[in-house]
C-alpha cells in the first residue's frame, strides 16, 4: 500500500494490527453489517457478540475476503484487504474456522492438517512430476509438521482416519488445527464451542488461552457468555448489523444497551403494568 502522507489518520492506523474501518456489507436492502469500526490489538482475545442475526458471521466473511465490503475497509498490518480473494487474505496471515465445521470429509485427518500448510510451500507441477528434491523435501516436511500439529491438538491417534468419522468435538479441534497450519497471525474462530458439552467447552477455552499465549491474536464469535466473559480481553457487541457497545467484559456485562439488545425492554413494561 502506498503510504498516505496527507492523512495523519492513515499513518496512525498503520500502527494498528487489524483495523475494521467503517465496514458495511449490505445484501439488497438488508444491512447485515452497518458501519462497524473497531481495532484489534496484537495478542488480544477479541470477541464479537450479539443476538442471532446481528451480523457477526457476515463480518467474519468480510474480514476474510469471502465477501467484499459494500463500503469501508479492513486494514491488516497497514494493508488494505479490499478486493483480495480469500486465499490471499489467508496467506497474509488471517485464518478462520467456520461455525458449521467444514472439513475435507473424505480425506484423512492428517491430510486435512497437511492441506493447511500447502499455501506456505512452493513445489510446482514439475517438481512433483519429476519428483525433484524440492517436492520430496517439502512432502516430508509437511508430513512432519502435520503430525506435530495433530499431536499438539490431541488428534495424533486418529491421523489415518477419514475426517468424516470424527465426532463433533474432535472435528472442531481439527478445524482449528487446520487453520493453524496456515501459520496465521490472527485466528478467527466462529463459535468454537457451539454444540459442545461443558467439559469440552472448558477444554476449548484452555486451548484458546494457550494459542494466545503462543503469540496468536484471536477474534472470537461466540454465544456462550461463560466462554466470552472467561477469555475475552475486549468485546464488541453487534445488533442488527451495527455496533452498539464496546469494552472490557465487566463493562459489557453491566451495559444497559447490551442487556436490552439481548433481553428486550420487556422488564419495564412488566413493572409498569404491575
Amino acid at each position: 500500500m502506498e503510504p498516505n502522507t496527507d492523512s495523519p489518520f492513515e499513518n496512525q492506523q498503520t500502527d494498528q494490527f487489524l483495523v475494521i474501518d467503517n465496514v458495511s456489507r449490505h445484501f439488497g436492502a438488508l444491512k447485515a453489517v452497518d458501519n462497524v469500526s473497531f481495532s484489534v490489538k496484537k495478542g488480544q482475545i477479541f470477541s464479537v457478540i450479539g443476538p442471532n442475526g446481528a451480523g457477526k458471521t457476515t463480518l467474519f466473511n468480510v474480514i476474510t475476503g469471502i465477501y467484499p465490503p459494500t463500503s469501508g475497509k479492513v486494514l491488516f498490518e497497514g494493508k488494505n484487504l479490499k478486493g483480495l480473494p480469500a486465499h490471499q487474505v489467508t496467506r497474509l496471515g488471517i485464518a478462520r474456522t467456520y461455525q458449521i465445521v467444514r472439513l475435507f470429509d473424505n480425506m484423512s485427518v492428517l491430510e486435512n492438517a497437511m492441506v493447511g500448510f500447502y499455501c506456505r510451500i512452493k513445489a510446482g507441477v514439475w517438481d512433483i512430476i519429476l519428483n525433484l528434491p524440492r517436492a520430496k523435501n517439502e512432502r516430508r516436511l509437511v508430513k512432519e509438521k502435520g503430525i506435530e500439529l495433530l499431536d499438539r491438538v490431541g488428534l495424533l491417534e486418529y491421523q489415518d482416519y477419514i475426517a468424516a468419522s470424527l465426532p463433533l468435538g474432535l472435528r472442531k479441534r481439527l478445524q482449528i488445527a487446520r487453520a493453524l497450519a496456515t501459520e496465521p497471525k490472527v485466528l478467527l474462530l466462529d463459535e468454537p464451542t457451539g454444540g459442545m458439552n461443558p467439559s469440552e467447552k472448558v477444554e476449548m477455552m484452555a486451548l484458546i488461552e494457550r494459542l494466545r499465549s503462543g503469540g496468536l491474536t484471536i477474534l472470537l464469535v461466540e454465544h456462550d457468555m461463560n466462554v466470552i466473559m472467561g477469555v475475552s480481553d475486549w468485546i464488541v457487541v453487534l445488533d442488527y448489523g451495527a455496533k452498539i457497545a464496546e469494552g472490557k467484559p465487566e463493562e459489557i456485562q453491566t451495559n444497559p444497551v447490551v442487556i436490552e439488545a439481548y433481553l428486550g425492554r420487556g422488564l419495564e413494561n412488566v413493572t409498569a403494568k404491575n
Partner: protein
Amino acid sequence: MKTGNKFSDWFTQKYDALERQPYGRIVVPTVTLLAFALIPMFVKSNYWIRVLDSAGIYIMMALGLNIILGYTGLLNLGYAAYYAIGAYMWAILGSPYFGIHWNFWVVFFLAGLAAGVAGYLLAIPGLGLKGDYLALVTIGFGESIRILANNLKLTNAAMGISQIDPMTIGPFKATSVQHYYYVLLVICVIEVILMRRLENSRIGHAWMAVREDELAAESMGLDTHNLKLLACFIGAIPAGMAGVMFAAMQTYVSPVSFKFVESITIVAMVIVGGRANVYGAVLGALLLVVVPEPLRGSIFDSARILIYGLLLIVMMLYKPQGFWPRRYRGKSHVKGNNGGLDLSGKKISDSKTSVGG
C-alpha cells in the same frame, strides 16, 4: 450387490495390508507388471490383444479424467473431445490426406499439449459454473468438437481420414497389435507413476480439498480457481495422447468414434473403478473394456450402453465410492442419518478394524 461389496472390501483391505508391508510397495507392482508383460506370450489371439490395446487407451484416458472428476470433482461429460483432438491431430499430421508425415512422438506430445490447452480454455468460462451447469457446458463442448469434425474439410467431414501412419519408434514401425500392446503398457506405467506422484503431492491433496469443500479450501490459502484450471489442463493431456495412439492403431479416424457415449464410458470407468485412486481408474477401464467384450455380436452388444447405465445406477446406490476408491480407516458417518453428531469417541476406536467407504 452385498457380496460384491464384501468382495471389494475384502480385496482393498488385503491390498492395503500388502502395501503396508515393506516389500509390498515393490513386489505388488512388479508382479502385476510382469503379469501384464507376459500376457502376449500366453494369449495368442490377436483379437484379445487388440481388446487389451483398446483397454490401454482407455486406461490413459481414465487416469486423465480421474484428475478432473476423481480428485477435483468437476463433472466433465465431454472428455471424448480431447481424445478427438489428439486423434485428428495425428490423422492430419501423419497421413496421405494432406501428404504430411510428421514424427509420431512429436505429434504425440503436441497432441497432449493441444488437448491440455483445450481443457484449459474450456475451463476459463466453464468454471464460473457449478456442478450440473459445468457438465452441460462440457457436453456442449464435446458435441461441438464432434460436429465440427463431421463438417470440416480439414477433417474430411463424415468420411473421416484413412491410411493414417502407424506408430514409429526411430526406424522401427509398429505393425502388429503386440507392438502397440507393449508401447501402451510402457505409457500406462509411466502415467501411473506420474499420477501417483501427483496424487500424493500438495497439488493432489489440494485438488481433493477443492472437491470436498471449495470454500474451506479457499480459506486454507489455496487458489481454488487456479487449481481447477490446472486440473482441467493436466487432466486433458492424456486424452490427446490417447487419441494419437488410437489413430495410429486404427489407421482410420472418423467422427463416429467420438460420440457422447465415449465420454460417458470414460466417466463410468472412473466411477466404477473408484474415484480419486489411480489403480481404481485403471481397474475401471480394464473392467469396462474387457468384460463386455464376449457380448460383442450377441443380442447384448447393442445394449452395452444400457448396461453401463445400469451399472452406474447400481454403483451409485450401493458403492458410490467405486470398486477401489482411495481408502482410509474409520467409517464415514457424515452422510449417515445423524450427521455424525451423536458419535462418542469410543465408536472411533471401535471402528479401527473396519475399512471406510
